[in-house]
């Protein structure tokens, strides 16, 4: 029962976030996209109402679904929850392209950028990196040390209450799956961090200095958010990796690890929310100062099919600011897009492969 209530609370918080999402970037913006003045009243508000109506339908259906599954098949609760989260995002994908058609199409022709190289090393802190590496190695070392002591069958899945409900034979896949996945993820985060730092960075020639300092704050927040995720993910996966030892550890240790996992999850999400909040504040101020949030040339505008997907072969930049919303997205016409395909595909393939090995070992 406790897990259903917890999940419902998290779900309602997500719902609240998505309810206010469209108007976060300030006046005359919808989903972060700047609309022409009259269009917001005439066309924007109806879209907003329809979006929120759809959210309400998703919410009611989800709560009913969660309660039903909670009663009938508690083990599938987490999976059901993932579907619910995807459901909340669907209205966004439905109404953002509609909003994109109403966008203020003004482009800039006078652009400025600082003539300073941006390097990963300027955003890297030695002690932080050391901490992340230590957090990655520690669970690995502990698991290797206690590996001989583990029984032939080890727990590999737990329900939301922290009770083990899935087991596998002791082996490399079942015991070391999570530390290896964690290492993969760290590589992904670092590549992402590098690309965000090298992402297109520009301001309009008018009020350049002022907008520059704002955009620098936003970039810093974005990079810090990635580092926060690296730290939180490292701790989270390390903790869950150690849960495999729960059968040979005293019950208090297992219980502590379980609670720590939930606390860590909450901290991670809170941190992300904090950094996103900072970035949204910057967006609001840039909008107030210039009437726009991102500054695109006419050529670049053509690359956005619906405000979500950027494809522009003529663009040298790989990572670009989203014209709707907060943060960056990739230029799918750039060769580097294939790297990301691999980065996302490989952990998935590895996970499926490991899960199969665990079942048949």
């Amino acid at each position, binding site marked *: 029962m406790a897990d259903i209530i917890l999940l419902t609370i998290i779900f309602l918080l997500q719902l609240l976030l998505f309810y206010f999402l469209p108007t976060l970037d300030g006046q005359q913006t919808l989903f972060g996209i700047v609309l022409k003045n009259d269009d917001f009243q005439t066309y924007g508000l109806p879209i907003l109402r329809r979006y929120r109506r759809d959210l309400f339908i998703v919410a009611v259906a989800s709560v009913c679904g969660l309660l039903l599954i909670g009663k009938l098949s508690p083990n599938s609760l987490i999976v059901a929850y993932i579907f619910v989260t995807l459901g909340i995002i669907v209205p966004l994908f439905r109404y953002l392209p509609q909003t994109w058609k109403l966008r203020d199409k003004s482009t800039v*022709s*006078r*652009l*400025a*950028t600082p003539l300073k190289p941006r390097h990963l090393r300027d955003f890297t802190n030695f002690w932080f990196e050391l901490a992340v590496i230590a957090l990655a190695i520690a669970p690995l070392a502990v698991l290797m040390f206690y590996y001989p002591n583990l029984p032939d069958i080890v727990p590999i899945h737990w329900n939301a209450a922290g009770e083990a409900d899935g087991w596998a034979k002791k082996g490399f896949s079942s015991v070391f799956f999570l530390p290896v996945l964690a290492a993969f993820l760290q590589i992904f985060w670092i590549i992402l961090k590098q690309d965000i730092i*090298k992402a297109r960075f520009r301001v309009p020639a008018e009020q350049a200095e002022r907008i520059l300092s704002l955009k620098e704050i936003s970039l810093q927040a974005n990079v810090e958010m990635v580092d926060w995720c690296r730290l939180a993910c490292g701790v989270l996966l390390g903790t869950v990796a150690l849960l495999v030892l729960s059968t040979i550890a005293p019950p208090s240790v297992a219980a502590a690890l379980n609670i720590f996992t939930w606390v860590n999850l909450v901290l991670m999400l809170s941190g992300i929310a904090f950094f996103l909040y900072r970035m949204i504040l910057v967006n609001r101020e840039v909008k107030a100062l210039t009437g726009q949030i991102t500054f695109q040339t006419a*050529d670049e505008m053509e690359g956005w099919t619906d405000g979500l997907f950027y494809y522009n072969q*003529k663009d*040298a*930049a790989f990572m670009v600011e989203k014209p709707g919303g907060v943060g960056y997205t990739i230029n799918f016409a750039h060769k580097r897009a294939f790297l990301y395909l691999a980065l996302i595909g490989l952990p998935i393939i590895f996970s499926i492969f490991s899960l199969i090995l665990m079942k048949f070992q």
Partner: protein
Amino acid sequence: MLIIIDQNDSRPIYLQIADEIRFLIARGELPENTPLPAVRQLAGDLGVNLNTVATAYRELQNEGLLAIKHGAGAVVVSRTTLEKDEISLRKPLRSALANMFLAGLSWAEIMNLVVDEMRGLLRETR
């Protein structure tokens, strides 16, 4: 240390980039050994072709102001150009003065503009 590009300007972009960098070097905002961003970074930031930035950097290297580091941008090596041909230095000045005269400025106004621009250039130089 901002570089400004105007897509509606009649001058080609590579020339605008080169002029902007020359101006910053002259003002002292780009002292010797200052690294400049990689061609890819600058091209992405400004929304121009890679070749455009590469051409600008190459032209400045030929003048002796930059040294291009293969794949890693460029570095300011000198604040003095190699060639100091008086005729080629006079030409843009003559053209600018003619434009100002044709725009209806008096000689006094033109002098004021010239002195003002010189002040702007020398403000941060030694």
